């Protein structure tokens, strides 16, 4: 396992390097305009543009520019997201400072929605599998079909319009000025964003649990358990579910990892000041240091989630051994 972990960490570093290089190249080659020109605004002189280019380090050769940014991705004190390189071209805020300030919102969104989609998706999947072919199964799969078909941006707007604007059952979007995360949670500010994020995933997980459980319940060891005289409840929950939920663990880790990189649409729609909303704004303004910082942090979360999930899998399933 030790050698396996080392190999995976090295592979993770390679993946992050490739992601950073691709991100850099995309922005260098994008026709979205020269960041220096955007920064200096209009009615400027070539000298001012050159001064801005020099200030942003854009006058250096491409490999030098990349090296400056790549150095900032190394988790070494004084290097990681170095403020001399990683600052917004727009408002000059430090990328590191802003990322850490926004991370709690994104984490809250990710974890809260995960709790909801698990609480919805797993029971629906179990009921559908156990009562396969019944009206409960059909209802569950109808929910799943609607859920996976519904675009997040549409669902979010619908929820806001119905439950806030019309019914006033939920608070308006955005966080109150000065309110902490806990206060905002207590105010119910995260409920609609959680539901928006969770709905599609709940539908997907319901289908996945149903399919896995149906398959597992046909296995020999389940037949043996029944033959031993165990109650059906015990057969399902103690024996069947364990095998059926193992892939769910895998997906859960990856989904949370992806969400930690920012739920772009939900954060923007609900005015949640998380990493995703910031990324959307920064892409629109060609704010490269921010985009690079957010992309790498997102990639890091996904890569780390992958690693954690794989390791967890080995503990869940004794047949899995890594060397």
């Amino acid at each position, binding site marked *: 396992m030790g050698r396996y972990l080392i190999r995976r960490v090295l592979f993770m570093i390679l993946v992050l390097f490739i992601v950073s290089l691709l991100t850099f190249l995309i922005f260098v080659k994008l*026709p*979205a*305009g*020269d960041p220096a*020109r*955007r*920064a*200096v*605004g*209009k*009615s*400027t*002189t*070539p*000298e*001012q*543009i050159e*001064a*801005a280019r020099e*200030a942003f380090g854009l006058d250096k050769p491409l490999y030098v520019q990349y090296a400056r940014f790549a150095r900032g991705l190394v988790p070494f004190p004084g290097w990681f997201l170095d403020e001399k390189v990683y*600052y917004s071209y*727009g*408002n*000059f*805020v430090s990328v590191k400072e*802003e990322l850490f300030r926004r991370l709690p919102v994104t984490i809250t969104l990710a974890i809260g929605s995960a709790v909801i989609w698990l609480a919805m998706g797993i029971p629906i999947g179990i009921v559908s599998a156990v009562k396969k072919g019944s009206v409960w199964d059909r209802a569950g799969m109808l929910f799943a079909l609607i859920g996976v078909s519904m675009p997040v941006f549409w669902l979010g*707007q619908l929820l*806001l*319009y119905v439950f*806030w*604007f019309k019914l006033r059952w939920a608070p*308006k*979007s*955005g*966080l109150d*000025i*000065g309110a902490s995360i806990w206060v905002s949670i207590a105010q119910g500010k995260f409920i609609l964003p959680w539901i928006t994020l969770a709905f599609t995933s709940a539908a997907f997980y319901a289908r996945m649990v149903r399919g896995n459980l149906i398959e597992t319940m046909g296995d020999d060891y389940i037949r043996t358990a029944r033959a031993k005289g165990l109650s059906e409840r015990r057969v399902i929950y103690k024996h069947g579910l364990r095998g059926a939920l193992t892939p769910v663990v895998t997906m859960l880790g990856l989904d949370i990892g992806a969400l930690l990189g920012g739920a772009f649409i939900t954060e*923007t*729609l*609900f*005015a*949640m*000041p998380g990493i995703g*909303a*910031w990324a959307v*704004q920064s892409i629109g303004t*060609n704010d490269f240091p921010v985009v690079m910082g957010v992309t790498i942090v997102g990639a890091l979360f996904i890569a780390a989630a992958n690693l954690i999930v794989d390791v967890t899998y080995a503990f869940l399933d004794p047949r899995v051994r890594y060397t």
Partner: protein
Amino acid sequence: MVAVVAVLGIVAAACGGNDSTSSSSTDTGSASADLSGGTLKFAQLADFYSALDPQKEYSAVTWEYYRCCLLRTLMSYKGVPTDQGGAEIFPDIASAAPEISADGLTWSFTLKQGVMYGDPFGDVAVAAGDFIRALERTADPAANTGGYSFYYSPIKGFDDYAAGKADTISGMSAPDDSTLVIKLTEPTGDLGYRFAMGTTAPIPPNGDAKYGAAEGHERNYGRFMVATGPYQIQGAADLDFSVDPKEQKPVAGYVPGRSLVLERNPNYDPATDDLRPAYPESIEVTMGGDNNDLYNQVSAGEIDFVVDGAVPPNKIKEYTTDPDLQDRLNVYPSDAVRYVSFNLAMPPFDDIHVRKAINWALDKQGFRQVRGGETTGQIAGHIFVNSLQNNLLADYDPYATPNSAGDQKKAMDEMKQSKYDSNGDGVCDDPSCEGMLTITDREDPYPDQAAILKDNLAPLGITMDVKELERGVMYNKCNDANSHTAFCIGPAWGKDYADGFTFGGPLFASGGLWESCCNYSLLGATPDQLKGWGYDVTSTPSVDDKVAECSAAQDEARFQCWADLDKQLMEEVVPWVPYLFDNSVDILSPNVTNYSFDQFAGLAAFDHMAVSGG
């Protein structure tokens, strides 16, 4: 001012509405104790472009915060519409209008007494030298990224300071704390307007620091800004300028990308200020969100106003048709023009008859309709918005057609006079009329407008190769002389301040040519420039002399001069087809009990807005 115009101007209305201005209870400018108090709640879709740094911010939204609330300047505006004097400037920190020498090269301002800074400089009075400090920072390339320092080049020594060739701006002096003297290299009739801009707001001294309180904050002075207006950023009292700038903590009331809270400036003396009623007790601004949802919040009274949004079509329809809501809908000219530009170095646009023909052919009504109809603005018959010429050309439209729908016959009659119509049938015969590179914005409604233009030009034998681009890329391509773009369909232009120079200079003088901005028509380009950009055309018309003449003029002669230039452009040069003078459309929450439109910024005047419960 193109990006903000693009946001404010993109509205789509259902049928109905009218293109005359309407307003709710418009303030006359006099303060009323009954209206004071309460908290105004705003929403902004986007954060400030440059974190509120006055030497960097180039946005009407930020300029309104400066004017209404945070930063007083030598001259300023009343925050009212044009017909109430909103395009005029008045003394603010200056005690009176400046004294101008006979040759127009020396301007002297005398300061009012008793104008104090906000916290933590509450015991410091504004002095003449503080304006010099602000202009030096304006000139400093390390601090002015994205700003508009070019407006101050006529100040003697300004460019030398900017280039690092001098330690001071030689043309600015403060013989005493109450007197500021400015010497110019050329007469500049609108200098007073330029000293109404936020970048000229005074910066307090701080020990020996060259830039005073702004020292060490080249990137982010906005988060340490010291106010002079009726408001300051909440938490300003906790700013500590005694420590090294790197150790200073930014003001708590502005969280970039998230929120801004303005509280009353305890050191502000209303007796020194005739311009700002400053009704609300505080202003809370949240950032981010969805446009439609934010306007629902306005309707519900959860917030009072969306600063940088576009009122959705269903809301416009609702507010124009419901008698109970009509007085909460405000429509005013935003002093921006939308246009189609020609590249005069690209055949067949080197022929004035072709350009005139397109002016006749364009269906301006159709363009307006796809934008949302009459509420979105007034059909433009000329280039400069009317307020910049004191309405001298309000009824002038040399290419007027019935219902502004275009006139194909007149267009073809004009085309017949062109060298590109060899057989005089009103249709272009030259290959240069085919597949003309046309750039437009890819967002709605610009592709629809491109389709209308295609239909309008087909009978003239002109076909287009339309490229739809992201807005920023579009503007870049239109501006880049090397791109050989024939048509630009998407642009818009708003004034920076209420003077024709903000149109004439950047749009039509040679100083606005690539790599500067925004003379897309390449007027005034030299043969060497044209050759360097790859054109076979060796000359384009120039209006540099006229722009210089108007820049030096003053008072009524200035309005007339810009009007003359407008006519010259429309009849003798024809660089554009202007089609719409944009409207600004606002809706207000039920809590707002007073409103005024600030013609300077083209937005609601925040200091005039009062809320119930105040």
